[in-house]
């Protein structure tokens, strides 16, 4: 054979090798898939760790997400609503003269198209008296017909009924006890009016509520907004805040941003989302998220170590086989790809089964709900427990699923890579002689 012909043969060989690399990759995937099942027990144990880590994160975050969403909704409906528009100074200095124009603030919330209910409120401190007993309290003037449709407090009237007409008042259970008040009694309210004079109002107690919040039950009085404005010498359009309520808003970051950031039309207004109004709920959510994440990453570390161990064993067991493949002309990087594919298949198996397990445990609970175990209830503040509904419904947490997928895939690939790097220092002849 001439030198030119030999050279041509070598060139053809090189070209063919490049052209068929995708076919080799497919073969490596096939070998890897079959290798995964060579030691079923080890594969299932490794995948089992991944399944548990995935389930823990996604189930717990879904469960907590559902609990917190309901808790936030209930907390928002108890008093502040899901969004408020206030005078820019009212949050820092809640003085009677810091008011907004009702129609303007309401239109701001309504134009977002995201609120089911919008209504005005006015509020202030006052001396409350029934007969010869008096105490300090907090008077909230509101639109009874609107608030009755969404307010959790309106649904927690334990005695009597909610506000229906002017001249009526509902008060907290502890406040009623302190004042010795009962239904039909006259409640005398004395405060400082907007004009600096005395704000005086008498109302008939038509209902006594139990909100679950000690503070509210001890201090709060609700009266119609018109009565408040009249007593406090306020104008008809004046409000300390306009409240918006929407269940959908809780799940909508976009809606929250609209409520928070609407710049207005040349009028300086303070927009508050429920996260601003209920910082305790947000803080508790974040705290629980941190503890769940900590558990997840802790289990991930255990999974990573188990994968390192599994691949160390695997490479030890297959040293002879790898030596033969290297002797036949396979390249170390091709073997590395094979091991990385094996790692990917194991983590994919764990992820798929983990998500399957999570789905079959989360979906029925999303549908039918569940009651919280007593031990878990004890981990929440009593005021918040009082707000919990009878049945809690988890919300599937896609973000947790993304976190679990990325963390597990990356963790397992790196864990498998560390022992696999031995391949590059392997001499075929020594590897072939290795004992299995």
């Amino acid at each position, binding site marked *: 054979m001439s030198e030119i012909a030999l050279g041509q043969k070598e060139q053809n060989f090189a070209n063919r090798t490049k052209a*068929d*690399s995708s076919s080799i990759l497919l073969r490596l995937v096939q*070998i890897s898939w*079959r290798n995964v099942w060579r030691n079923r027990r080890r594969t299932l144990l490794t995948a089992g760790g991944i399944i548990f880590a995935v389930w823990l994160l996604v189930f717990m975050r879904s469960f907590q997400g559902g609990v917190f969403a309901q808790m936030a909704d209930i907390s928002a409906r108890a008093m502040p609503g899901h969004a408020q528009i206030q005078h820019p100074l009212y949050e820092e200095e809640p003085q009677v003269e810091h008011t907004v124009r009702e129609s303007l603030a309401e239109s701001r919330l309504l134009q977002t198209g995201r609120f089911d209910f919008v209504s005005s409120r006015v509020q202030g401190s006052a001396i409350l008296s029934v007969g010869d007993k008096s105490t300090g309290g907090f008077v909230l003037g509101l639109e009874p017909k609107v608030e009755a449709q969404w307010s959790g407090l309106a649904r927690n009237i334990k005695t009597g009924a909610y506000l229906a007409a002017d001249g009526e008042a509902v008060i907290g259970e502890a406040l009623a006890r302190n004042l010795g008040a009962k239904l039909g009694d006259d409640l005398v309210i004395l405060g400082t009016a907007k004009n600096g004079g005395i704000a005086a109002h008498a109302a008939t107690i038509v209902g006594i509520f139990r909100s679950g919040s000690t503070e509210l039950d001890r201090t709060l009085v609700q009266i119609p907004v018109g009565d408040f404005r009249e007593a406090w010498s306020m104008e008809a359009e004046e409000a300390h805040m306009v409240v918006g309520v929407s269940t959908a808003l809780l799940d909508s970051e976009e809606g929250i941003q609209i409520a928070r950031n609407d710049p207005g039309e040349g009028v300086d207004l303070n927009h508050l989302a429920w996260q601003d109004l209920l910082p305790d709920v947000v803080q508790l959510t974040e705290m629980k998220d941190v503890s769940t994440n900590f558990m997840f990453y802790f289990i991930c570390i255990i999974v990573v170590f188990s994968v390192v161990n599994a691949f160390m064993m695997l490479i030890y067991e297959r040293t*002879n086989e790898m030596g033969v493949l*290297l002797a*036949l*002309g396979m390249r170390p990087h091709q073997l590395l790809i094979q091991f990385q594919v094996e790692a990917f298949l194991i983590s994919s198996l764990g992820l798929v089964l983990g998500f399957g397990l999570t789905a079959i445990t989360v979906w029925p609970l999303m549908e039918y709900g569940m009651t919280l175990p007593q031990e878990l209830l004890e981990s929440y503040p009593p005021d918040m427990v009082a707000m919990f509904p009878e049945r809690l419904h988890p919300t599937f947490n896609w973000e947790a699923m993304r976190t679990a997928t990325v963390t597990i895939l990356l963790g397992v690939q790196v864990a498998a890579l560390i022992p696999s790097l031995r391949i590059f220092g392997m001499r075929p002849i020594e590897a*072939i002689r290795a004992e299995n």
Partner: protein
Amino acid sequence: MSGEVVMARGLTRVYQEEAVPVHALRGVDFSLSSSEFVSLSGPSGSGKSTLLNIVGGLDRQDEGIIELDGEELAPLSEGDLAALRLRKIGFVFQAYNLVPVLSALENVEFILQLQGVGSAERKERAGEALKSLGLSELQDRRPGEMSGGQQQRVAIARAIVTNPVLLLADEPSANLDSETTKELMELLRNLNETQGMTIITATHDPMVMGYAKRQVHLRDGTVERDEVVTD
């Protein structure tokens, strides 16, 4: 065809075993022409496996020159050596060493795949190689489902399917009974005689030696005898 396939001059290989130097080869001269069938024999530690490994590009000499098919091996990188093994050498190992998760056909095909041979040609050539060794019926079986003799025949199919310039068989009969060994050696002799395949076997087994046309006997790292067998 009688070109020189292997040319070795003054091959020396020293291993360090717990700081004690062990001279596996001491200045061995060895050459092999195309279509020869040579057996390397000798007691354990004589250097036959070391010589086979150096010829096959699996080990490197400390001194001397080795050329395979006219190409000197010493300057080649590990990657180049791997490519050379893939292109020019067929290996048959003592323990068959097939990929356990691949069928007989896939094992034979895999080596062609590493060479970059296309799918259709690969399947055809692998099928033919198995057929020529009487393994068509077993092509879908995995190694664990075959006897030792059948596995060794698949290993030979894998070794010859690439049309290598040299077939190296290290103790090919070590795990086989005498009847299977005889069948296997008939196969190798047939390959040598009908296809002109150049073959080197390293063996202890007198039956295997008996099939070779040239017997090289090593002792203490040197060639003690190198004789052509006449019928």
